[in-house]
């Protein structure tokens, strides 16, 4: 792990923290977009290293968390059908729908399997020609290419007993929704490194210019995050609003063109409902007409309704950076990782779950 240890070096971290301390003359609120970044920030106690005026708020970047309730209910309906093998990334299993979750479907006899790649589903589909294999295709731009590839290959190989339940969401539209909010206090962004590794920096230049907001594409290790924060603060203090790339070891300005082509071939941009936030125009992906025979919603003749969310949970405000987990009356009491009420408590990368697991704030009841 020599490569990673370099990015977790305590001496270098302290130096960056000192530089941040020197440069910050005013209070600033910075949002990190990705759940992986939130997880690292809380796990390594990064906020403890920042001066008092610098506040990190945690964005909507956990795809598991923002998958809408209505879609999870549909997933549960599909997974409960006897002819279906329902495949999912592991952390979707625990996500509560309005009355049930996939783990409980599994416990009551549903064939629910954890896969590490959507391509594994094609293998399962070939081995089980009499069954319907459904993959829960969630995620940001990061997971979209692999999911697109699975669909494209299924089409090419004539695998007809495979479909996907699509819940893809796009980062830039979510950032726009946050910036458009009248209550917004986010002054700068740490953009999600892995999303940019696929999509490149292109979309972010216009965002930075239009909203006059600095955007620093940032990695996930402690030193990445501290350096990203430092770069963002430098811009804020200098009244600049540019797109900078802290994560140049993984992110090229143009991204990954081959992956982008694959996404465009299979998916098209659509409006999407975000759990805890609501409908964001042009913020997600759906299958194009050429591939919509692989759409599980169509295949099983389902329609999606949006059932009401918990009224106590303030996850929407948390994911827009307006509140922090500990501001929620249910946090750590009625809402815990084993019984989550809202989106950010669901996956280990959700802001509330990360705070609950790694900080004292979830444990005030002793």
């Amino acid at each position, binding site marked *: *792990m020599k490569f*990673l240890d370099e990015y*977790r070096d*305590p001496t270098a*971290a*302290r130096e960056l923290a000192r530089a941040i301390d020197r440069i910050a003359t005013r209070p600033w609120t910075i949002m990190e977009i990705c759940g*992986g970044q939130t997880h690292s920030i*809380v*796990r*390594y*106690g*990064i906020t*403890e*290293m920042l001066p008092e005026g610098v506040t990190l708020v945690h964005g909507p970047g956990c*795809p*598991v968390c923002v998958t809408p309730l209505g879609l999870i209910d549909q997933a549960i309906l599909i997974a409960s059908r006897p002819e279906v093998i329902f495949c999912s*990334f*592991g*952390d*979707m*299993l*625990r996500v509560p729908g309005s009355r049930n979750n996939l*783990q*409980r479907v*599994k*416990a*009551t006899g549903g064939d629910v399997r*954890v896969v*590490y790649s959507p391509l594994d589903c094609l293998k399962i589909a070939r081995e089980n020609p009499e069954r319907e294999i459904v993959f829960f295709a*969630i*995620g*940001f731009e*990061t*997971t979209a290419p692999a999911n697109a590839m699975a669909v494209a290959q299924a089409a090419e190989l004539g695998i007809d007993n495979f479909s996907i339940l699509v819940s893809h969401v796009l980062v830039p539209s979510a950032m726009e929704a946050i910036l458009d909010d009248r209550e917004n206090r986010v002054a700068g962004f740490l953009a999600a490194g*892995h999303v940019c590794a696929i999509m490149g920096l292109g979309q972010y230049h216009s965002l930075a210019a239009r909203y006059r907001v600095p955007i620093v594409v940032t990695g996930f290790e*402690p030193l990445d995050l501290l350096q990203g924060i430092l770069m963002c603060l430098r811009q804020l203090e200098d009244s600049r609003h540019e797109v900078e790339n802290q994560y140049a070891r993984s992110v090229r300005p143009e991204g990954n063109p081959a992956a982008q082509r694959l996404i465009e071939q299979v998916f098209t941009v659509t409006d999407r409902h975000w759990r805890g936030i609501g409908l964001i125009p042009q913020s997600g992906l759906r299958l194009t007409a050429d591939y919509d025979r692989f759409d599980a919603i169509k295949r099983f003749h389902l329609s999606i309704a949006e059932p009401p969310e918990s009224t106590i949970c303030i996850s929407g405000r948390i994911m827009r950076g307006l509140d922090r987990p500990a501001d929620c009356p249910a946090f750590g009491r009625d809402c*815990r*990782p*084993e019984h989550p009420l809202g989106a950010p408590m669901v*996956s*280990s*990368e959700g802001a509330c779950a990360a705070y*609950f*697991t*790694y*900080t*004292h704030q979830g*444990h005030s009841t*002793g």
Partner: protein
Amino acid sequence: MADPENGNPLSRGLVCPTPLSAEERVLLAHGGGGRLTHELIERLFLPAFRNDLLSRRHDGAVFDLGGSRLAITTDSYVVQPLFFPGGDIGTLAVNGTVNDLAMCGARPLYLSAGFILEEGLPLQLLEQIVISMRRAADLAGVTIVTGDTKVVDRGKGDGIFINTTGIGLLEHSLVIAPDRLLPGDQILINGDLGRHGIAIMASREGLNLETVIESDCAALNGVVGDLIRAGIEIHCLRDLTRGGLASALVELAEAAHRHLEIDESGIAVREDVQGACEILGLDPLHLANEGRFLVVVPANDAPRTLDLLRRTPTGTTAAIIGHVAESGPSRVTLKTRLGTTRIVEMLSGEQLPRIC
């Protein structure tokens, strides 16, 4: 204890802190060794079976019988795959129960073995498992003296489930239990974390890692015996199993009503295990182990304890990882390598690989 005169004594004892609803089902996570397992014990088993020995919530029960101090413990083994790098279900079934006895400070003597076999299991496979059990028992110095065999219909078992119960003898006057923890006590671990968890996950999920990571599965009664014979004043012992170091520490803090402070820089994780954790998005603190344990001793015994742990073949990376704090709430805090602090929580469900 509830008054048994009023109504059905069992249902009176079964009053749960939160009542069970008709919709609740057993989930895999109830067996994961984390928060849900803990909840199941608290809500169902403890109220139903309530007695002084059980309430101590140790790895086994310790009691006096005919002038001797004995320990008894039981465990069931349902691992898949049945064979994995570094061991198989047979070695686990012997070492796991031997280790639970060792954690009570007992010298393991006798084991029982109950087999639940699925119709169609190749006998050759069963033979391999039984030979492993015999070998592990010989190494640990225990004898398997009684057993039981049941067969279930094809499809109703996972090849083979094994239950072992063990009896051991305490030959010292130490009281080894969480409530013996005192402020200033040092917390030691006998080596690096997570090899069993990754070995199982890699072979179960067919992950092709660069190196083969072998389970750390081993009997711990030898090293515990060394500590006792050396006159170390052991306050508590706890083996790290399914819930990993995090669960063991949190359980210890809660049972002892003490605050534990852990230093991350003392915790060893092998490079290949750490690498697998990075790929799968897992925290080594939550990974399963089968040959690692915590020992809590007074500060003046810590250097000698460390020396004895390091003398064992698998203990070269043994370390002092923390101490019992003077005061504070019953929880565990971790000083990270960056010098910041965070709390350590039990795993709240099954350990699930993250999406990205």
